């Protein structure tokens, strides 16, 4: 009995999540000024800290991965619609692959692509070329050693540097959205060089849909 209830609750939750997502894209597309509707579900904030058990790993294996709840259980919700299922699974594999792309890092107060970053971006470009219709967002981030307004501008630069590289590689610029969060969304809340290095980053993430 309890189990049934749990399953029911989780199904309702998933339904709500989808709802929220579709509402959100609608809001993004709307051009006109509008009063803000408080988002019905909180955007899951990124898990802030890496587990201390794996401190040796420099690049975090896409922390956003953990905030992707939808794909697997969605299948069980809609077992009949095979079309949708297929689309979903394509999207899911793409999302999975995008999320597995390594985050690239930058030097302090710089948006220059380092050699290690270029290696990663080549990998990313190869993947995106396989999915010519895939829309992704490039997020630019900074460490805390900068003012709020300057860091947002610097994050834009970083995201744009990644976009330019991918476009040079043949990716359709219209499929690449850039967004800067400045220093507002650190992965590591620490205040040392280790944390700063992790936070100066650009990540390619699937577009919310």
């Amino acid at each position, binding site marked *: 009995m309890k189990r049934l209830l749990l399953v029911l609750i989780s199904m309702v939750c998933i339904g709500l999540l989808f709802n929220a997502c579709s509402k959100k894209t609608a809001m993004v597309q709307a051009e006109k000024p509008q009063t803000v509707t408080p988002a019905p579900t909180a955007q899951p904030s990124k898990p802030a800290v890496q587990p201390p058990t794996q401190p040796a790993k420099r690049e975090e294996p896409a922390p956003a991965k953990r905030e992707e709840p939808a794909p697997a259980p969605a299948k069980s919700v809609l077992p009949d619609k095979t079309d949708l299922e297929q689309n979903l699974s394509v999207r899911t594999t793409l999302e999975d692959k995008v999320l597995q792309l390594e985050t690239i890092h930058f030097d302090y*107060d710089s948006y220059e692509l380092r050699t290690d970053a270029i290696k990663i971006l080549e990998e990313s470009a190869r993947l995106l070329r396989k999915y010519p219709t895939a829309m992704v967002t490039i997020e630019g981030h900074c460490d805390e050693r*900068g003012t709020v307004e300057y860091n947002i501008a610097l994050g834009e630069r970083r995201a744009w540097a990644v976009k330019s590289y991918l476009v040079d590689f043949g990716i359709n610029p219209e499929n690449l959205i850039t967004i800067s969060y400045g220093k507002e969304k650190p992965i590591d809340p620490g205040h040392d060089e280790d944390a700063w290095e992790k936070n100066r980053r650009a990540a390619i993430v699937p577009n919310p849909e």
Partner: protein
Amino acid sequence: MIQFRKIYSLLLIMTSIFPIILMAQTDVFLKIQSGETRRINIAVEEFSTNRNPELAKDLHQIIIDDLNNSGFLAVVDSAISDSANQIAEVYVTGEITHKSSRFRFEFNLLEAVTNRKLLTKSFRAFPFAVRALAHTAADEIVYQLCGDYGIACTKIAFVMEQKGSKELAIMDYDGQRLRVLTRTNSLNLMPCWSDDGQFLLFTTYAWGGGPLLGKYTLKDKNMFRFVDNPGTFTAPAYSPDGKKVAFVLTQNGNSDIYIANRDGEDLQRLTNNPGIDTGPSWSPNGREIVFSSDRSGSPQIYIMDAEGGNVRRLTYEYNYNSSAKWSPKGDRIVFVTLKSNRFQLCLIDITGENLTCLTDDLASYESPAWSPDGNHLVFTSNRGGKWDIYSILRDGSLLRRLTFSGGNTGPSWSPRLKPFD
């Protein structure tokens, strides 16, 4: 001949007004100049009351705090004291009378030696509005003594971290009566007040797709998008007369400074530079804008005309200078500078001379903003272990912590608001 008559009559009018101006000036007890540290000693006697001693005590304490916080006055125990510098030069008496649900507060400001009355005023309010009434009374006292309204009737807007989101909040200048304004579950940053205190412009991620400008109406408690054009927008700043807004528009990764009218239309580009240009702040006469730019290779402070011409570099010391704010008095510019991975608050003349730093320690100080009278600064600092809002006099004295919960940043000081707001 007619012209001569005109001039003559004008002269007559002027000479008849002149004594009035003189008299008005003698009403001001002491005009304090900036940088002067001497404060007027003032005593506030206990207020008499016919019903509610608790309220009288609250009112008394809030007024004392306001007078001390003004930076012009020092509240001393009484008019008669042993220590020479503790003697009050002026003192306040007051009386509270309750009538039905409201109360009436009448107070007098008197010169200590002569007992000459400098000011008598009375206000009525409901007991829940005791803070607003106290701030109004304190402001009147400060105005009478210093010729300038203080900060008691002002508020501070700021960014408050809440479970992964950052929302706009507002509080009295002393940190009391805190209230969260937005509930967007998103990032809202860098609020700035309109000249009339009715609107807040800020950077928001609430609509998705990157930072945009939001306009919050305090009366109606709602927010709208400001500027419809495509692109990402940050760092808005109202001009002192409220007719224009400067902000940063980023296109193709490049941030430049633009202005629009108060409705977010008629965009004009002011900077056209491959470097990062951000953080605009207007001069008090609205003719110039200070901003930061990394066009030289590192972020430095620059000044330009409000039309974008005559750009001149202001700072040459230190490698990272940003968040410049022009003082409402017009003479100084506050900014933050990065020293050994920490931000410190510094001041510089608009000529680029007399660089002084207000802070220089192991903590970080960010996002400074001026009080409307130009005598105080508010900023965020982690000096208490968490990021909280503090205020300080522009001479570096009277440091006060206004919030204690942590995660509080990006303060902006309101203009003097209507009493009882």
